[in-house]
């Protein structure tokens, strides 16, 4: 069922689900939403399973015309969403009818917003996922960014209007987040550099997209005498590369392999907070041990479970 028509696509809007897994061995990266928590909650609000496909809008949201009855929920960054030019709240499911116009007035906080629709966005899955992989030209609509005139289909289910996420669960999306990392896999290429990495503030450069975030800040030095690159190996989302120039790059979800040393890796539950920063924002890093990271992972899973139970009542 055709549900939304793109009037104006916004800065960078794609269809994404929780990712395409099992294909990294063939050189196909996971893709998927960058802020997994926001996307999951947007789905739960409209009554979907949490891994359905949603729209990921970046900095400037799209303008969309509603073509059939349905329910939407917008979560993540505050891009000032509106229906028919009146503001609507984030983290709430709202019924829409044919002719309604969904728009965004401008960025207030964060970087990426998620638009979920009751029934889920129903583009055909490719290799088990609906996620758009732009370089590989697959997923979403013809494997590309949305353009004016695209019609976005949804599944049959209507959805659950009037659901609202309790404010205690809404992330803060600070412009200066503390991002937790696990050192490695190549932390042994650094000594003093690790201190520079953990004790400095880094600015998100304009080169920040779904492939990776280049950061500006003090130069992270490699150990004297070590090679500054490694034999190419697959990239893990959140891996923090330090190229020979010493300026770190946080890898996100559309990378496959790299030959630079990785000083640390962002824990999976903090990757969304990285993706909610934009050029000019400042990031600090804090090292945690693997056990602590897994504790955080299980707390995050528990939180989602709680939200799911709350919203299904």
């Amino acid at each position, binding site marked *: 069922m055709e549900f939304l028509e793109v009037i104006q696509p916004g800065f960078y809007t794609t269809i994404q689900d929780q990712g395409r*897994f*099992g*294909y*990294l*061995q*063939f*050189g*196909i990266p996971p893709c998927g939403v960058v802020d997994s928590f926001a996307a999951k909650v947007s789905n739960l609000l409209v009554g979907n399973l949490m891994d359905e496909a949603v729209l990921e809008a970046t900095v400037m949201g799209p303008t969309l015309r509603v073509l059939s009855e349905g329910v939407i929920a917008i979560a993540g960054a505050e891009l000032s969403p509106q229906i028919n030019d009146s503001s609507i709240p984030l983290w709430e499911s709202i019924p829409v009818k044919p002719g309604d116009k969904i728009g965004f007035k401008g960025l207030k906080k964060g970087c990426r917003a998620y638009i979920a629709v009751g029934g889920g966005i129903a583009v055909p899955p*490719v*290799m088990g996922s609906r996620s758009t992989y732009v*370089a*590989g*030209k*697959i997923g979403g609509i013809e*494997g590309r960014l949305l353009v004016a005139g695209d019609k976005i289909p949804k599944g049959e289910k209507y959805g659950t209007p009037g659901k609202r996420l309790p404010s205690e669960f809404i992330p803060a999306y600070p412009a200066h987040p503390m991002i937790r990392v*696990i*050192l*490695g*896999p*190549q932390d042994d290429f650094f000594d003093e550099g690790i201190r520079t990495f953990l004790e400095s503030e880094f600015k998100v450069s304009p080169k920040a997209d779904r492939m990776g975030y280049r950061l500006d800040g003090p130069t992270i030095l490699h150990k004297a005498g070590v090679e500054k690159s490694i*034999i*190419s*190996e*697959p990239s*893990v*989302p*959140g*891996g923090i590369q330090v190229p020979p120039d010493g300026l770190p790059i946080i890898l996100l979800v559309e990378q*496959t*392999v790299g030959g630079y040393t*990785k000083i640390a*890796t*962002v*824990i*999976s*539950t903090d990757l969304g907070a990285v993706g909610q920063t934009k050029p000019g924002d400042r990031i600090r890093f804090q090292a945690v041990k*693997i056990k602590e*990271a*897994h504790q*955080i*992972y*299980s707390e995050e*899973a528990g939180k989602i479970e709680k939200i799911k139970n709350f919203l299904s009542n």
Partner: protein
Amino acid sequence: MEKWPRFLFAGDRGLLVEYGDRIDPEINKRIREVFLIQEKFPIQGITEAVPTYRSLLVFYDPGKTSPDRLQKELLELEKKRGEETIPSPEIFEIPVVYGGEYGPDLEFVAKHNGITPEEVITIHTSGTYLIYMLGFTPGFPFLGGLSAKLFTPRLKTPRTVVPAGSVGIANNQTGVYPIDSPGGWQLIGRTPMKLYNPKKKNSILLKAGSYLRFKRIPEAEYKRILQEEN
């Protein structure tokens, strides 16, 4: 205790199992075998495994397993290497039309190495190349085994678009571009085969740990295969 494998954290969901610190067919063979055995005897909690040049990257669900447990189970699993019959690696044959508009740098590669273009083709088609790993773009093979007689540096200025199927050389590496992409490799020919075809069920032609050979074909056959592939 043996030095290898070495287990490194790649975040809270990834474990990097390194089997060596160099590019070596024996190390890659061991990785291929462990990879195939863990596919046959799945380890609880592993969500994805990726064979690489010299390591196996394992993604896991921290709710279902732990790095300690994975380490034990992977070491245990490797003991099956002697017992299990591992299928022999495949050899993929990639037809290539060399030179002309398809390989604009063939002359340069010849000149750089002090041989004739014909000799470049003969040497390039006589090699059997190990596919160490796939990546960079979908289905791009990182190959080992290029003859030192063909080593040629990258272009000083990369091309903004290298057409899909282009076969190139960069230093001691040779490879095939699966999709149109920018690139600085010296292009010596082009294959009509699609290394990446998302419309097919098995969208990626090649496999890590297998081998690849190049076969010279005339332009007419290139065009015929190209039609079949489209």
